């Protein structure tokens, strides 16, 4: 298995290459652009036999993928921030038409003001579109998750679009050694796309159509069933991937020294790496702390969340975006998941790393200190320049 020193964006490109994608469509946006530049090289050099449609907008990029997917092609696109927001209408079309598109998203802040730093507002704003959402911690995880995403998306029980998210610059433009599987290995893991449920030229068929309330509800219910199939299917996908490559990233929530801990932080994306180091430091100082890395945000892994929370004293959730009117989106999900759990810890919401601000070890230490010493709180904005605001429950 060759190892290459590549960026997170190149990890996306290599995964799409290994997956033998047949149709790619994209529009440039920072910091996504290098993903599709690399893919353009693969296609132009003949290394990847794919149609690359260089469209005039992200809206069109996703429409190209939706339509190509309806005819049975394996499709890939990538975007960031404003581009993802422009795709929003097509996000619903992709899931509604059960198009197994895989999309790489480089998480970037949303304007105004313009900011190209890491921030999860762009993908969180798509959480109700019916897409599966993964957040990756490392370039290796990006590559592995994109390959897993194709298998998951195309599984007959699922047939849903999947996005694989990586933090702007921390992954997108940072180079790390990445093990790149052999093409033959990937072929064993990811066979050619199942040609069922696609248009067959020459036949009277319609995908999309329109309905009144008489059928619409059933379409929504089918979508809900497909979403419910994601977690059990993902287990098989990860087992197969581990069998072939020897690597696992630990399911929808990967824990680290969390069992029986007094305080556990739940993180998404690259914040996990920093938090893991701080966990080791604090453990060395005798503090019982741990980490839970949320890999899968949609569908939200409710059972896994409860399993993590069961043995934990207090839980803190680190969000890289803010849902106005409620707070940290992952914190809200965790609270909702735990509401009916018999042994639930208190949940504190931390807002950190918004707009590309670094989540430092010092900041993580402070979050653990808040968890271990302070009262349960609603939302704590980390490192706020204006004022340090702490809203207390009740």
């Amino acid at each position, binding site marked *: 298995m060759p190892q290459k020193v590549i960026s997170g964006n190149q990890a996306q490109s290599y995964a799409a290459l290994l997956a033998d994608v*047949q*149709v790619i*469509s994209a529009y440039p946006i920072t910091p996504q652009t290098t993903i599709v530049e690399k893919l353009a090289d693969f296609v132009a050099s003949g290394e990847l036999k*794919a*149609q690359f*449609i*260089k*469209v*005039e*907008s992200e*809206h*069109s*990029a996703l*429409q*190209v*993928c*939706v*339509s*190509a*997917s*309806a*005819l*049975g*092609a394996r*499709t890939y696109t990538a975007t960031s921030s404003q581009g993802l927001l422009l795709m929003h*209408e*097509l996000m619903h*079309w992709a899931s509604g038409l059960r198009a197994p598109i895989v999309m790489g998203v480089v998480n970037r802040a949303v304007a105004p003001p313009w900011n190209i730093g890491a921030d999860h507002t762009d993908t969180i704003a798509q959480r109700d579109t019916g897409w599966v959402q993964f957040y990756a911690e490392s370039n290796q995880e990006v590559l592995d998750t994109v390959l897993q995403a194709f298998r998951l998306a195309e599984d007959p029980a699922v047939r849903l679009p999947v996005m694989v998210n990586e933090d702007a610059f921390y992954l997108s433009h940072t180079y790390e050694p990445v093990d790149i599987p052999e093409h033959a290995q990937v072929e064993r893991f990811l066979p050619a796309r199942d040609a069922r449920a696609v*248009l*067959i*030229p*020459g*036949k*009277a*068929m*319609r*995908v*999309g*159509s*329109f*309905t*009144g309330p008489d*059928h619409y509800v059933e379409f929504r219910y089918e979508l809900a069933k497909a979403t419910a199939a994601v977690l059990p299917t993902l287990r098989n996908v990860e087992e197969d991937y581990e069998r072939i490559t020897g690597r696992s990233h630990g399911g929808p929530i990967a824990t680290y020294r969390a069992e029986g801990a007094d305080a556990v932080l739940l993180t998404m994306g690259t914040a996990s790496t920093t938090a893991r180091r701080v966990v080791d430091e604090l453990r060395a100082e005798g503090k019982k702390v741990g980490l839970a890395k949320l890999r899968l945000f949609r569908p939200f892994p409710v059972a896994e969340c409860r399993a993590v929370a069961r043995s934990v004293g207090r839980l803190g959730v680190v969000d890289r975006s803010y849902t106005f009117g409620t707070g940290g989106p992952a914190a809200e999900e965790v609270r909702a998941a735990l509401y009916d759990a018999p042994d639930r810890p208190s949940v504190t919401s931390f807002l950190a790393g918004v707009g590309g601000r670094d989540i430092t070890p010092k900041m993580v230490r402070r979050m653990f200190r808040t968890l271990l010493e302070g009262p349960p709180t609603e939302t704590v904005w980390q490192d706020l320049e204006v004022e340090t605001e702490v809203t207390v429950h009740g």
Partner: protein
Amino acid sequence: MAKLTIPAEEWMYPGHAACPGCGAALSMRLLLKGLGPRTIASIPACCWTVIATPYPTTALGVNVMDNPIEATGASISGLRAAADALGMKDVTVVGFAGDGGTVDIGLQALSGMLERRTDAIYVMYDNEAYMNTGVQRSGATPEGAWTTTTPVFKQTHGKTEPKKDIMAIVLAHMPAYAATLNPSFPEDFVGKVEKAKTIHGARFFHVYAPCPPGWRYSSEQTIHMGRLATDSGVFPLYEVEDGRYRITRNVARLRPVEEYLKAQGRFDALDAAEVATIQERVQAGWERLKERARAAAPPAPTPPPMAVAAP
């Protein structure tokens, strides 16, 4: 005995949901006669979303995919890309969009599709307003037409701006083929579609699609309306291949535009001066088209096959 040039096969079935006299329904029927069963059509939100009938039925004997209103150009790009990637060589990819979905909200995706030389046919059926939502003005609504958003009052006589010239916009992209179609002239219609099917690259049709409820005329008058439109010069029939113009229905002497305007309730409020202005514009457009066709004509005078004199 007259030779029948229009294929007898039907790819649009009875039981569709169009209004009586719908020009868009006639246009789809003729289009599919020309394109045949291995057609993959993408249809945005428009009258045809409904005409094709709701799930689980379909009025069309071909593949149909629905797409959002502004994305037809992108959708046919994706279908073409997949057909090429999957080795489907004998399929025709066609977008079938209304005027609002083309000249207004869909213009960007159309422009992208044309600029990329996408091997597909884009059809704009032009009923000159947002008819599916109940007759609101679009960029393709002609000057002086009543719509629900260009109402007629003492001081206002319908839409104040002229119709957007979609053919000029399309031709600026140098497509492989572009032509106007009118279901009142079915031989010309199907002949051009069959020709376009054999051409590779980006192709465009501007289709005249009369709308009885939106234009306020009686539904049995649709074919008559189409004949008036072409023979008055309001909607000339021509094609442009590699930049060369050819008029496919030469009209020796145009009928007065007033006949066309008077036949439809939507132009009721126009006064004589306004009619005269429209007549001038139509005449100028016709002269311009004839000039372009002359410039493009080959040295030897070969009369176009469809040349007829106005009745």
